[in-house]
């Protein structure tokens, strides 16, 4: 293995930018997404949803719908198994309300019919009698004693007394003497913040095709970030054995965390079971907004003390999150991540989750972290303004580094925060002059990154090509990255390798594509599987040459005798070994399965220049640069894509995206017209700077990169807007009416 002058490994194919393997299929329309799979005799499944934010379901009369010509099945919660495990039961009840409708759009019944028109008519024929209950959608209101209770008796033991029953979860992290730390500060800033729930906003609505036969076997094709998790959840919800349910993941039109659970899949299975025919369910956009996972909505108080030369002496935060109508632990992530960028003598975070009449939270890139870090980075910025300090210098002064005890406990190993901050400081963007009325904002961001259960097979084909079989849907270019790592390890060209994503029957369990885990964990398993295949190929060469297996090594894609004592044989390439494999012991395959550990944390810094129209409150993003530590960028174009995509989603979150509820608790903007993700013309080119501080936990140094980039934009933009307007902003999104109001209040 060649090393460069800094002792870093020199790569042959890792770090190059081959054309994406899914590109042609996607631009020609040939790629099969969730709704593209059909089966003979297939029925159309449609779901009836509650028009109320909170209501007791007094009765559901399905008889008229069942009697309709063309209606083959009607189901309600009665058609599902009794699930013991509380969190799986929550998933089940989220898919089909049981006794109470908990939010506007909560599913209450479903039909399967021979056509969309019949299905639509059948939904109208189902008579549901509701007893409307008082509702609550605001997290602070939901926590107060006396608030309408969304679900009773769901609180864990450590929740302090005095709150509403909606408060289900409490956590606490930190170290040091916070009171003593605040006593040492020259300036203390305390502020309260609110962030709206936002949706992942993937283009492809959830879609699936379920086919269950009378002998109890089932197949499910769906758009998901994790077919194995879909299998476990659906098997539990349907009362089936996992082996009887095969789940195949389709090509995916975006997920961002939102497709890590199930919404329509158990419904389609139950309909198929009852109808005895395949059933396809495709959500409308309206259903996606109303009934799939947005993020948590939050309310956060942050207090930070600083000396006049910029040292943080103590920090504290209270975070109140709502993950909708079901218990949710996402606040843990926020409470852990909030101060992770800082080396602090004293820090304490407290988190609460409260139930509200909103859809069940689903993961969204770095779940829980953007909100917490937005609040923290806003207060750090305000302190810099008040104390007249450079915001990058202050972050460098307080930056977490190797050996820092993190705010959530562990001591950091090699991390890239200081290098990332220094790169930002040295970049021309940080020194570019600003025009009149313009301002610059910046923020740090952090995400843990995860490893997890992973299983990979690598098959050497007789023509010298290689197939990698992995179990994680490709949501950001992982097939290319996996092929690159296999090519690197095997020493063969990238285009000899094809990576595919297997169904649940074809491979051992793989955790969901989440936590920025895939390029790290699946990559690591692929490298190990390649090494396994290499060992076997060396064994075949040894057999052919009649020497010991240990006397053969693998160099540049070929088996060679190890040293002069092993004997003199010309190298045998992978293709040559593969071509004769049937004569030397049969097919050659490598395999690896493990529970991956050692995913290195990742930090980023974002710089934004912006301008606020003081007469309308509209913010224009003028320039944007993302700096991020990728450990090792396996396919730099995809890494840049992640950094740009995260920044853009964060810009939308900061400026316009929000779940808007009416006084009746109904969602007002369940569509892309009024749920405003940024359009291309809203954005400048998002510049990227990739840092590579190798992760000691991966042979190539890879760190996950997919989540960190959505973390800094919220505060970076809020800090910019606050500086441009002269008013400290404390609520997201900073939509024009909200910004104009703040400007006018300032006078």
């Amino acid at each position, binding site marked *: 293995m060649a090393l460069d002058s800094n002792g870093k490994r020199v790569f042959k194919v890792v770090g190059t930018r081959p054309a994406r393997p899914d590109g042609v299929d996607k631009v020609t329309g040939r790629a099969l997404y969730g709704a593209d799979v059909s089966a003979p005799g297939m029925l159309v499944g449609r779901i009836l949803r509650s028009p109320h934010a909170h209501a007791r379901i007094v009765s559901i009369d399905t008889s008229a719908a069942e009697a309709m010509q063309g209606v083959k099945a009607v189901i309600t919660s009665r058609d599902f198994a009794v699930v013991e495990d509380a969190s799986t039961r929550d998933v089940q009840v989220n898919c089909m309300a049981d006794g109470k409708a908990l939010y506007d759009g909560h599913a209450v019944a479903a039909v399967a019919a021979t056509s969309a028109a019949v299905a639509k008519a059948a939904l109208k024929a189902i008579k549901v009698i509701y007893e409307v209950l008082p509702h609550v959608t605001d997290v602070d209101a939901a926590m107060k004693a006396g608030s309408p209770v969304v679900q009773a008796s769901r609180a864990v033991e450590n929740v302090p007394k005095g709150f509403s029953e909606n408060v289900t979860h409490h956590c606490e992290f930190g170290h040091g003497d916070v009171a003593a730390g605040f006593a040492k500060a020259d300036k203390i800033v305390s502020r309260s913040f609110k962030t709206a729930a936002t949706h992942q906003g993937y283009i492809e609505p959830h879609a699936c095709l379920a086919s269950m036969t009378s002998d109890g076997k089932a197949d499910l094709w769906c758009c998901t970030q994790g077919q194995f998790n879909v299998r476990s959840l659906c098997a539990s919800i349907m009362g089936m054995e996992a082996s009887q349910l095969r789940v195949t993941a389709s090509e995916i039109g975006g997920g961002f965390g939102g497709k890590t659970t199930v919404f329509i899949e158990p419904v389609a299975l139950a309909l198929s079971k009852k109808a005895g025919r395949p059933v396809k369910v495709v959500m409308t956009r309206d259903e996606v907004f109303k009934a799939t996972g947005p993020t948590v909505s939050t309310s956060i108080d942050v207090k930070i003390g600083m000396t006049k030369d910029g040292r943080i002496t103590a920090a504290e935060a209270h975070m109140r999150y709502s993950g909708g109508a079901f218990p949710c632990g996402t606040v843990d992530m926020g409470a852990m991540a909030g101060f992770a960028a800082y080396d602090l003598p004293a820090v304490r975070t407290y988190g609460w989750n409260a139930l509200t009449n909103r859809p069940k939270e689903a993961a969204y890139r770095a779940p829980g972290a953007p909100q917490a870090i937005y609040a923290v980075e806003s207060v750090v910025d305000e302190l810099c303004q008040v104390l007249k300090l450079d915001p990058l210098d202050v972050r460098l002064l307080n930056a977490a580094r190797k050996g820092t005890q993190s705010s959530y406990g562990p001591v950091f190993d090699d991390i890239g925060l200081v290098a990332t901050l220094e790169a930002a400081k040295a970049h021309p963007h940080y020194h570019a002059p600003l025009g009149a009325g313009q301002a610059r904002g910046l923020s740090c961001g952090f995400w843990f990154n995860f490893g997890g259960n992973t299983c990979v097979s690598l098959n050497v084909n007789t023509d010298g090509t290689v197939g990698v079989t992995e179990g994680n849907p490709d949501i950001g270019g992982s097939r290319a990255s996996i092929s690159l790592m296999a090519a690197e390890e095997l020493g063969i060209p990238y285009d000899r390798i094809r990576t595919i994503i297997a169904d649940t029957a074809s491979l051992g369990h793989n955790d969901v594509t989440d936590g920025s885990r895939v390029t790290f964990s699946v990559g690591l398993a692929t490298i190990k599987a390649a090494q396994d295949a290499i060992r076997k190929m060396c064994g075949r060469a040894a057999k052919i040459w009649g020497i010991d297996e240990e006397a053969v090594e693998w160099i540049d894609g070929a088996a060679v005798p190890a040293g002069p004592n092993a004997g003199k044989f010309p190298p045998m390439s992978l293709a040559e070994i593969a071509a004769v494999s049937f004569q030397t012991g049969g097919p050659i395959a490598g395999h690896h399965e493990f529970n991956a550990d050692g995913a290195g944390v990742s930090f980023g810094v974002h710089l934004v220049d912006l301008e606020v129209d003081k007469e309308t409150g*509209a913010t224009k993003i003028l320039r944007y640069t993302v700096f991020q530590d990728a450990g090792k960028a396996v396919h730099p174009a995809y890494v840049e894509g992640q950094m740009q995509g995260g920044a853009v989603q964060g810009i939308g979150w900061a400026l316009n995206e929000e779940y808007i509820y009416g006084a009746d608790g109904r969602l*007002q903007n369940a569509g892309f*017209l009024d749920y*405003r993700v940024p*359009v291309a*013309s809203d954005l400048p080119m998002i510049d990227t700077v990739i840092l590579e501080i190798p992760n000691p936990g991966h042979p190539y140094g890879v760190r996950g990169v997919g989540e960190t980039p959505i973390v800094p934009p919220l505060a970076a933009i809020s800090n910019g807007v606050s500086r441009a307007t002269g008013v400290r902003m404390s609520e997201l999104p900073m939509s024009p009416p909200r910004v104009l*109001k703040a400007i006018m209040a300032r006078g």
Partner: protein
Amino acid sequence: MQYAKPKTVAEAARLLKDEAGVTRILAGGTDVLVQMKAGMVEPALVVDIKGLPGIREIVAEAGGYRIGACVAGAELGEHAGLKALWPGVVEGAELIGSTQVQGRCTQAGNLCNASPAADSVPALVAAGAVARVIGPDGVRDVAVSDVPVGPGKTSLKKGEFIASIFVPARPDRASDAYLRFIPRTEMDIAVASAAVSLELDGVGMVTAARVALGAVAPTVRLVEAAGAALVGTRLDEAALDALSAACSAACAPIDDKRGTIEFRTHIAGVLAKRAARIAYTRAGGQA
């Protein structure tokens, strides 16, 4: 649902009149098809008027232009004469939707869909445009400002439809402009909008002004006081402030997900000022 594509205006009027159920006209379809797909309307009869003679043409008439009811937004943008005469009218129509929508959407459809936020309407009202309406009882001309009567409602009678919209001749030093506020830069619905049409004399004094606002009331508003605030001025700050105040005073908006009453009222004045400046410059005035 029945679909018809008549060849004569008389046949179109008869079909629309004879159908007892809900009818819709299919011009560009960019509202009606979306509404049908969303289940907001289930028409018994859809009459496609794109086959009627002359309905897709822009014709010079009496120094102005007669715009056929099925002329698409993109076609307006490509008409040099119309653009030179009424740039604000064209700019309003061209703001509708995206490139794809522009290939289909029409001013008449925008007007008859009767959204308070319709982008092509305020500039037509400021221009004093007149719609030619055909119906079972013959032809009549109606001021564009009199067509919408409330959100989703028009003054057209059973069987009536718009065949064309006429924008009049202009004196030499005259122009117009349209601006809307949206939270994004495109693909959005006006939170408030303003169109200003000005005529100037040789020294840049405003001799006539018409100001119309969108999305701040149930229908487009022609604000006479706002126009009056500009006449006899050279668009000095005091005149612009008076214009802005008159516009804000004329607003009767709603509070909704797109904007608050306060916000809409404020920015209607801001937009009117900015549109007035653009129209003034276009008319050859030196600010």
